[in-house]
Every structure is written in structure tokens, then in C-alpha cells.
């Protein structure tokens, strides 16, 4: 467990981390979220709003939807979205006429990028489920 001193140091360091500072850097950072949409918080994406609401209501038994229930629903929809992207990557990179080693190289590179989003969504759902 972090000590009070460590926590204070972390907070000070976090304030220094303001992301890219130059105009060009900020522009690149802004475009990251647009490349595949996974960097955008799914809870703020209108495309998934209805599914998140529906799942949150189902999980709470139509009672009041708590913050943790909503977070579980968001993380679950995120996981389902990531799995569909992974399936699309298989179809795009693996099931083609290219030689097998080339297909695998492209597939593995794409999966490596996707993995951190899946890991994040999975951990988020785990935390939210435990808090429910």
C-alpha cells in the first residue's frame, strides 16, 4: 500500500503530466481517439448509449441503476465491441490470399495494439462487479 508521502508525491507528479504541449503534439493526440474510436470513453459515445442503458437496467433488475451497475454495463459493452473489432481484424488480415507468415505478422501487430484496450475494459468490469 502507498504511504502518505508516496501519495502526495504521485499527486504532484500527476500535475506535471499535462500531455502534449506543442500544437502539433496536441493535434496528434487528438487524432489518436479518432483512429479506431477505442480511446474514447464508451460511456460518452452515443452509438452505444442504448445498449449500455438496456444492460444497466437488466443488471439492476429495473431498479435504480447505481454508478457501479452502469460502469459494469459500460465495461461489458466495451468488451463486446473489442471482440467484434478483433473478429474484423481476423477477417481483414488472416482470411486473405497472402502468404501465412505475412498474414500472421499483420494480425499480431493489430492484436498487440488492441490488447491494452481489452485489458483495461476487463479490469474495469472486474472492479465494477466487485463494487456492485
Amino acid at each position: 500500500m502507498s504511504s502518505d508521502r508516496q501519495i502526495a508525491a504521485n499527486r504532484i507528479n500527476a500535475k506535471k503530466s499535462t500531455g502534449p504541449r506543442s500544437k502539433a503534439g496536441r493535434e496528434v493526440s487528438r487524432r489518436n481517439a479518432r483512429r479506431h474510436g477505442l480511446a474514447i470513453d464508451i460511456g460518452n459515445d452515443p452509438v452505444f448509449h442504448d445498449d449500455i442503458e438496456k444492460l444497466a437496467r437488466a443488471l439492476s433488475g429495473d431498479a435504480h441503476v447505481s454508478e457501479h451497475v452502469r460502469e459494469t454495463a459500460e465495461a461489458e459493452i466495451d468488451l463486446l465491441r473489442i471482440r467484434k473489432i478483433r473478429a474484423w481484424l481476423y477477417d481483414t488480415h488472416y482470411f486473405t490470399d497472402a502468404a501465412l507468415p505475412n498474414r500472421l505478422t499483420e494480425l499480431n501487430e493489430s492484436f498487440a495494439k488492441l490488447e491494452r484496450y481489452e485489458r483495461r475494459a476487463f479490469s474495469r468490469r472486474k472492479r465494477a462487479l466487485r463494487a456492485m
Partner: protein
Amino acid sequence: MSMSSAVSEVSVFKPTNELSEVFGEPALVGLEKREVYDGFLSLIASAIKPTDPIGWLLTKDVTDLSWDIRRERIIKVEIIKYYQKEVVAELIKSLAPPGQFMTAMYRIFQADDDLTLWETDPEARVKIDEALAAKGHSTSAVLARAYMRGATQIDTIDKRIAVYERRRDTTLSEAGLWNDRLRQQLDQATTAIIEGEFTEAAEGD
């Protein structure tokens, strides 16, 4: 018993329409069939008998992760087969009859046909494997070379499988925290599923 035959022996378990709508179409690829996936989900659900939406959510997660593992294992088999063929394609040239002219003729006109036979005709394969073994290239030596060539890709797939397996274990633990009965049933169901994965991957689907 293979997974496919097991699926046909259980009654169909489905999540509620509301949850099915949210889950949407399963993330299938290539020639994977919807009915096989539904049967797989049904097989797990029939063992677990989830009674609430959380139970279904975790059941679906275990199903999807098991499906991913099964898919990766099939691809791993394809990689090994690909490099096995590549190794045999090189070694088969050593089966040429003696003499410079005959060797050249075999390599130009016959080697490719023999390779096709090795790939498609089980009886011809046995004979070619025997001929290669007589030249010092046993089946296990060929397989070892295939593994060496595909080592990087096989290693990447093994790491992915390990990640999916860890997540499936985590989901089982979550199920245990949520409901002890659910954890025990999920645990028992996945033992059968894991055995099924090996069978299916070995069969190459």
C-alpha cells in the same frame, strides 16, 4: 466425445431476449458457424443454469474466451501444418532417383506432384514419410523443424492463449465472489470445454 456431438445432446439454453439484443451477433470469423457458437454457449449455459443477468454475462464471457482459445489453437495447428509442408517441400527433393539427369527430371516434374500427394493422400503420405525417414528425416524431425520455423508466431499465439486463459480464470473467480453455486458449475463446465478445445483444435475443425 467431441464438442459438436455434446452440443446436440443438451437442451437449448438462451439468455433473455433483452440480453440477447445487447450481446448482439457473436464475434465470428472466417467459416465459423453461428449455430456451432450458439450450441457452444448453450452447452456451457446448460451446465451452469444461470438464473440472473450477471450469471449470463459471466457465462457469455467464459464462452467467448473459450471460443477465442479454440480459434487460436486451430490457427496454431495451421501454422505447424504450413511449415511442415514447407520443410517437406525442401526435403522431398532428396527422394530423386540417382543420376544427374534423373535427379533434375524428378525435381522439375515430379517433386511438386509428390508434395501434393503428401498433403492430400494419406496412403501416399505414409510412403513419402517412410522414404524421407530412410534418408534420415523422420516425421518427428520434420515436425521439429516446422516448430523451429514457426517459433515466433507460435510463441505469440501461446501468449495470447495464456492471456485468454487467465481472463477466463478471473471470470470464474468473479463468478465465485458473486455466487458460489455459479462458480462451482462454471468450473465443472469449463473442464469439459477445455478438453473439447484440445480435441477440436487437434481435429483442425
